[in-house]
């Protein structure tokens, strides 16, 4: 009987244990949640963070039917967004498919002398904005070919009659002669000619006005019919040939200069940092017309260098050095960018999880600096035991410290992060203490008693020197925000940052 009671008690206990632990498990288990309490969709969170009434499944979101990622097609704009969960797409009343739908297929959208590699619906929208008819070509399968397809189109003066007057439109040959443009009938195309050419006998003539064209860097003269002529050059304002024949960029004024803020030359070059802008926006004006090559470059930046518009470069302004295994606490890498004459800074990830790298591209127009925030690959430094593996730049960003080891007497050197990762040392629940503890070392120094009294150091005597303590501190500082470090402002901590404790123990051997 007692045995039965014991068995029942044991079964009940087991049941209770399973129930309670199951309950605990149910609360803490990560689930795919359709909507979290923070109102964010399709997140893998503990189930208690799921919003009331939200769908949830104890598996990864990618495995669920409601949060599976796919293509969301916005039929109004003709845009496709990949990696979109079904539920998010449905909530926006857009159509979702797991695989790419045909409507998302890209093709070459030719819009006059411009091109875009977009879906068909998007092409129609762009054509509507420009007020022209689009030519969509699905046979062109990449963006580069698409852009190239509109370059080198033959341009010239398209002369036709309108309201009993001989008028002209500066356009491509295909636009002039294909009949796609309803307003142009019985037109004659004059290749390489401008509408203001006197020999054409049209109503279009030269003016002192200028214009900016979509997709073009330069300022163009404008004829009396509103057509663009050649690139603005104040010295050619009355030059008949300049108003008659098309001149290339290289045949125009200042072809290899940026011509930023030039009053007389409109040969702006975006790669060199100038672009056609309204004089009011640019803050200065040209000798003729309302436009000028606005100077977009940055002069005398924070590091006292000048940069072109679009150039980026790395800046480290914090205290201490980088790349030596002892980066200051709270230090951060920065990428600076020159945008429209303004120096804009972009932080790399905090806790030194990213570092800034930069290089220069040499072009025919000079060098161009480019920088990027790149992941700091320090994570597996401490487990490398060979110098060659440690310094393998293809895999990691580590530094080999010769002569010292992470653990005393465990190797000929230590592999540590080049730029030490930051730690949340102020957070009592963080892992800073355990990380820093990895650099703890115990060194047993053996003394030998002399025959006539006194002691003589026999083993590990170097551990008693100041240089050993310094080496251990170096290791400590190299693994994270540990040891006696300075912060990003160059200030030392209030405490030493490490302890050297010497205690005696007697043993016979």
């Amino acid at each position: 009987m007692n045995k039965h009671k014991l068995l029942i008690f044991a079964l009940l206990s087991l049941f209770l244990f399973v129930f309670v632990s199951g309950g605990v498990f149910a609360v803490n288990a990560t689930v795919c949640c359709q909507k979290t309490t923070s109102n964010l969709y399709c997140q893998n969170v503990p189930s208690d963070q799921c919003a009331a009434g939200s769908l949830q499944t104890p598996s990864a979101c990618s495995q669920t039917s409601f949060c599976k990622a796919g293509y969301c097609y916005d039929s109004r704009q003709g845009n496709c967004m990949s990696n979109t969960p079904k539920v998010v797409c449905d909530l926006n009343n857009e159509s979702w498919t797991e695989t790419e739908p045909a409507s998302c297929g890209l093709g070459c959208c030719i819009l006059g002398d411009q091109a875009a590699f977009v879906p068909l619906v998007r092409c129609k929208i762009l054509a509507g904005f420009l007020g022209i008819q689009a030519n969509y070509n699905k046979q062109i399968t990449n963006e580069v070919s698409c852009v190239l397809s509109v370059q080198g189109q033959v341009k010239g003066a398209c002369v036709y009659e309108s309201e009993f007057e001989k008028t002209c439109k500066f356009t491509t040959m295909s636009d002039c002669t294909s009949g796609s443009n309803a307003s142009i009938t019985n037109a004659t195309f004059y290749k390489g000619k401008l509408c203001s050419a006197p020999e054409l006998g049209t109503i279009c003539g030269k003016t002192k006005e200028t214009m900016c064209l979509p997709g073009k860097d330069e300022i163009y003269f404008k004829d009396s019919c509103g057509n663009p002529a050649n690139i603005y050059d104040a010295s050619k304002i009355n030059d008949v040939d300049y108003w008659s024949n098309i001149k290339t960029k290289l045949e125009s004024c200042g072809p290899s200069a940026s011509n930023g803020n030039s009053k007389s030359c409109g040969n702006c070059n975006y790669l060199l940092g100038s672009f056609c802008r309204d004089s009011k926006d640019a803050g200065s004006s040209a000798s003729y017309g309302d436009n000028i090559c606005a100077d977009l470059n940055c002069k005398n930046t924070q590091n006292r260098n000048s940069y072109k518009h679009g150039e980026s470069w790395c800046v480290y302004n914090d205290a201490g050095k980088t790349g030596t295994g002892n980066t200051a606490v709270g230090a951060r890498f920065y990428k600076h960018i020159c945008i429209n004459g303004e120096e804009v800074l972009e932080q790399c990830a905090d806790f030194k999880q990213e570092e800034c790298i930069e290089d220069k591209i040499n072009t025919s127009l000079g060098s161009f600096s480019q920088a990027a925030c790149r992941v700091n690959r320090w994570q597996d430094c401490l487990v490398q035991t060979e110098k060659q593996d440690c310094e393998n730049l293809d895999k990691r960003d580590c530094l080999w410290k010769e002569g010292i080891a992470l653990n005393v007497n465990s190797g000929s050197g230590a592999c540590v992060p080049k730029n030490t990762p930051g730690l949340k040392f102020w957070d009592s629940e963080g892992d800073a203490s355990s990380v820093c503890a990895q650099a703890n070392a115990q060194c047993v120094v053996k003394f030998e008693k002399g025959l006539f009294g006194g002691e003589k150091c026999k083993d590990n005597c170097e551990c008693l020197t100041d240089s050993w303590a310094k080496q251990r501190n170096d290791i400590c500082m190299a693994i994270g925000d540990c040891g006696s470090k300075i912060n990003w402002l160059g200030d030392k901590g209030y405490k030493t940052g490490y302890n050297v404790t010497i205690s005696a123990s007697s043993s016979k051997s």
Partner: protein
Amino acid sequence: MEKHNDYKLKNPVDRMEKGSKMAKKGQMAIFIIVAIAIVALILLIAFYPRIRSVVTGGELTSSNFIKSCIGSDVQTNMELMNNQGGYISPEGFYVYNGKKLKFLCYTNEYYKTCVVQDPAVVSHYEKELANAIKSKAAQCYADMKTQYQKQGYSVSGILRDVKVELTDKSVNVLFDAPLSISKESTSTYNGVTIQIDSKIYNLLSIVQSIVEFEAYYGDSETTNYIQYYPDLKIEKIKQSDGTKVYKVSDVISKEEFDFASRSLSWPPGYEGVNAK
């Protein structure tokens, strides 16, 4: 006595001077009144068509009235939406400088790319703005009808819907409101469209592209966009928790759109290194 005489002698002269001064002042006042009248007449002649367009019938009147009535409301709502990632009352946001920035792409995890939270930025913006101005639009439509009735017109029509359409140069507010106005003759209109200059469409298109990059690669390269769009400025401000605050603006129109994203972030220190 002399003093008295002096007074007597001086007094008529003073009075004469005073009288002539008053006469001059009177003339001046007349001249000023006449000048004001002439200026008013010139102004009336110059702006007569515009004044007339507000008080008489016609589509121009309707759109002018509606634009003056709802224009500031559209601008205010757009400003609010632009400051909050395209939402009037964002849910799932990051607080930055007191502003609630909607997460357009988000993951709560480390080492993972984000999950898209708004797949159709432009279309959503259009719907959100249309909803935000709906009540004001109804009020403006009613006010317009009242205005016509005060002018002696007989007006019939209802506001069926208000839609917003973004284009590369403007924000178009479309009033789906058939309207019939009659006095001596009858005019009918299908609706009213008002246009407000804005570059928000271009900014939203860039935002959509950034979100796609965030979801696919975990980050976006802002300098790539600058190479293609001269008027664009993008600021990316990385926060300690891995959140990125984006500020996308047009340097010419000065319009700005701010939003947040959290994608492919790393924890501080060694947390999760083994789990990875």
